[in-house]
C-alpha cells in the first residue's frame, strides 16, 4: 500500500514527493511526459532574478536522485476511485493499478492556444511568437538573435493578456504571471539586441511579487522599454514579413500604428485539459476559471472537496515557481495531517 500517489512530475509534484518522503511516507509519482520537471524544461530564465531555469531543475533532479523517488514516466492516470474504506484505486495507462491512502494532484496548467486569438495572427504570420516560443528560442540560442524570418529585430512588441482577462477567449481571469514574464523577456531582448526598440502593450501591469516592481522600474530606467497602455486589436503582415499592429495608446487617447519585426504574445495559463478530465472523473469541484477549487481559500488551499485528494501547484490557478514550491510544501503538511488522522 502506497501512502501518497502524486499526479504530475513537475516541480510541484517533485517538491511534494521530497517533503513527504522526508516525513517518512512512501510516495509514487506518475508523470505523463518522458521527463520530470514539467514546464520548467521549456523556460530559459526565471523572473525576477534572470536565473537559468535549468538550475532549479538540476536542484530537483538531484533531490529526486538522493531520495530515490519512485517515478513512473510516460504514464497517465485514467481513473481515480475512492473506495468505501477511504482508500483510492488509481488506474493508469500502463495497466498498473495503484492502491493508495491519498492522492496529490500536481498536474499543473497548460498555456493558452494563441491560434484561438486569430486577429493576432499566430501561426498565420511567421514573426508572431508566443512567450513560450520565445523562451525556447532563447534557450537554444546560438550566436545572434534573429526573428523566425531571419531578421535581426529593430522593433519588438510584447502583448500582455493574450487569452487572459478576455471573455472572448473564454478566460475571464487574470493569469497574473504574464506581466512580469513580459518585463523579464523585454529586458532580455534589450540585453541581447540593444539596438532594438522594445514595446510592451498592457491593460494593467500587475507586479504583485517581491522583486517584480523593481524589475519593472529597471526595464524603464535602465533598458528604456516603452510601455503603452492599450490592448492590441489587430495585426497585419507587410510584404517584408514585418508586422503592422493596431493599438490605441489609451493614455494619449489616440490610436497608434506600430510596425515591428517580431511580436510576442504573452499567453496566459489555463487549467490543463488532463486536470479537467481528472476532476470530472473523481468529482472534484472546479471554480469558474475551470481550475480545481480549493476547499478553503485562506486556510485550506491544498484541500479539495474530496477528502484525501490534495492539490499542489498550478492546478488551483496560475502560480509562479515561488508560489508553486510553497504550495507544494504546504501540500506535504496537509497530507501528513490527513494520514496521521487516518491511523
Amino acid at each position, binding site marked *: 500500500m502506497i501512502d501518497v500517489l502524486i499526479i504530475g512530475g513537475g516541480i510541484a509534484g517533485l517538491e511534494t514527493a521530497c517533503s513527504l518522503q522526508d516525513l517518512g511516507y512512501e510516495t509514487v509519482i506518475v508523470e505523463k511526459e518522458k521527463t520530470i520537471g514539467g514546464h520548467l524544461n521549456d523556460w530559459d530564465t526565471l523572473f525576477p532574478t534572470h536565473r537559468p531555469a535549468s538550475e532549479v531543475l538540476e536542484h530537483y533532479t538531484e533531490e529526486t536522485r538522493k531520495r530515490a523517488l519512485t517515478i513512473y514516466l510516460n504514464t497517465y492516470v485514467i481513473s481515480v476511485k475512492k473506495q468505501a474504506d477511504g482508500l483510492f484505486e488509481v488506474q493508469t495507462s500502463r495497466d498498473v493499478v495503484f492502491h493508495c491512502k491519498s492522492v496529490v494532484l500536481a498536474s499543473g496548467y497548460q498555456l493558452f492556444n494563441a491560434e484561438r486569438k486569430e*486577429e493576432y495572427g499566430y501561426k498565420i504570420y511567421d514573426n508572431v511568437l508566443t512567450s513560450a516560443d520565445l523562451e525556447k528560442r532563447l534557450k537554444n540560442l546560438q550566436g545572434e538573435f534573429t526573428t523566425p524570418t531571419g531578421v535581426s529585430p529593430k522593433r519588438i512588441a510584447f502583448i500582455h*493578456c493574450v487569452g487572459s*482577462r*478576455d*471573455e*472572448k477567449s473564454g478566460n475571464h481571469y487574470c493569469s497574473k504571471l504574464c506581466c512580469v514574464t513580459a518585463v523579464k523577456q523585454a529586458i532580455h531582448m534589450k540585453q541581447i539586441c540593444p539596438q532594438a526598440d522594445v514595446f510592451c502593450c498592457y*491593460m*494593467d501591469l500587475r507586479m504583485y511579487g517581491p522583486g517584480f516592481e523593481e524589475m519593472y522600474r529597471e526595464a524603464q530606467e535602465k533598458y528604456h522599454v516603452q510601455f503603452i*497602455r*492599450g*490592448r*492590441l*486589436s*489587430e495585426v497585419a503582415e507587410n510584404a517584408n514579413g514585418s508586422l503592422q499592429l*493596431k*493599438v*490605441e*495608446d*489609451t493614455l494619449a*487617447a*489616440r*490610436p*497608434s500604428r506600430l510596425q515591428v519585426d517580431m511580436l510576442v504574445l504573452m499567453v496566459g495559463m489555463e487549467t490543463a485539459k488532463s486536470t479537467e478530465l481528472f476532476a470530472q472523473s473523481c468529482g472534484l469541484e472546479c471554480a469558474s476559471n475551470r481550475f480545481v477549487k480549493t476547499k478553503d481559500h485562506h486556510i485550506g488551499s491544498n484541500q479539495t472537496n474530496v477528502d484525501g485528494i490534495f492539490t499542489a501547484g498550478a492546478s488551483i490557478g496560475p502560480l509562479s515557481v515561488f508560489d508553486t514550491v510553497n504550495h507544494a510544501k504546504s501540500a506535504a503538511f496537509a497530507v501528513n495531517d490527513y494520514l496521521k488522522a487516518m491511523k
Partner: protein
Amino acid sequence: MRNFGFSTTKSRTIDYEKIDNRLIRYVLENEPTFNACLSCGSCTAICSAGNLTSFNIRRLSLQIRLGELEHAHEELDKCMLCGKCLLECPRGINTRNVIMLMKKGLYLIESESKEKNDR
C-alpha cells in the same frame, strides 16, 4: 478662435458631484454590460470608422461618463456599427447596443431641450 480642446474660463477639474449623467444613466440602465468597461482601447484600435476618421469610441464613452456631450452627436455619427469592437471587447460589452442607446438617448435629450426652448 482656434479650439485647443480646453478653454481658459471653464475649469478643467472634474467635479463628480456636478456631472451631467443623463445620457450615461440612460445607457447603463438599458445595457448594464457597459459598466464593465476597463478602457483597454481595443475597440478604438480595431474600429473601421476609426480607420477612416478621428472616431474614438473609448474616449467618447469616457466623455459621456463625465457628462461632456458637446461633441457626442457628431462623433456618434461616424460609427458604422460594423461590430468589430463587439467581437474584440475583452469584457463582453454589447458595444453596438451601447452606440445605438447613446444615439437614442442623445436624441431624447436633444428633443427635450428643444421643447423647453420652444416654450
